[in-house]
């Protein structure tokens, strides 16, 4: 996590020093962000698709992993949504 904090800090620092230049290149930054996110997802998919152990476990553990991954996500979203709605309301 340390190297991520460093990269974020370096970006913020440069943005504070050169705000006009960054705002001028906003379009390019958005495109780069999109390309990098897509590349990251492609790499993640590549790792999943190449992992024979994970693929062979899918038929027996697929539904269980869907429930075990999906329900914690849904409950987290619901709790935070209810909280933010209550605060705003």
């Amino acid at each position, binding site marked *: 996590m340390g190297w991520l904090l460093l990269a974020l800090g370096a970006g913020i620092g440069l943005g504070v020093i050169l705000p006009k230049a960054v*705002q001028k290149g906003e379009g390019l930054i958005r495109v780069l962000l999109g390309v990098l996110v897509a590349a990251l997802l492609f790499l993640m998919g590549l790792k999943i698709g190449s992992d024979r152990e994970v693929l062979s476990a899918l038929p027996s553990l697929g539904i269980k992993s869907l429930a075990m991954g999906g329900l914690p996500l849904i409950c987290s979203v*619901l709790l935070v949504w209810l909280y*933010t709605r209550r605060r705003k309301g």
Partner: protein
Amino acid sequence: MQCAPGMAVYPQEERLMLWLALALLAGVGTGLLLHLDLARADIYVRAALLALVFLIGLGLGSDWKRIMGILRRQGFEMMMTPLLTVAGSLIGGVLAGLLTGIAWRTGLVLASGFGWYTLSAVIVGEELGARMGTLAFLANIVREVLAIVCIPWIVRRAGGAAATASAGATAVDVCMPVITRSAGPEWAVPAFISGGVLSLLVPVLVPALLSI
């Protein structure tokens, strides 16, 4: 990056969700079809993440004063997001256990990976065996993938805090660019804090829940 209040949620979120899902599926398909040596894949992932977080930082820094104002107003909410994410994840783990016939304690353990599939799978695998380790790996990958694909929709329906919650520990890395792209650059710091807190909790909470 300037981002007026009305622009915080981008209008083409469904299209973004589709592109994200397609990129992931293209990767899975390529992996299935080609026998690639992925020894260097982690290096590329790390490089892409570094570049992404740097670019997000640039956007934050260029609009620093306005964003700090928003963060000051959101201070309490920022602390509540990781707390409620932990509570929601554990409730979801117990429910998933009840639904799938897995012991509720194991459900708690699997959910406390918060999407960090590598670490949770190793800890769970050592304590509960290879099958549960694989389930921990798959469950947390499912959480990360679902979060990535659904974040644009969650932002539109429930806001940036809920999207940050969906990402769990991965809000600090892989999901951060998706959150900021959908919710706006001001969500980079809350996502970093929430994901960071949850990442620190995984190595503590998974072994603690295993000992129940």
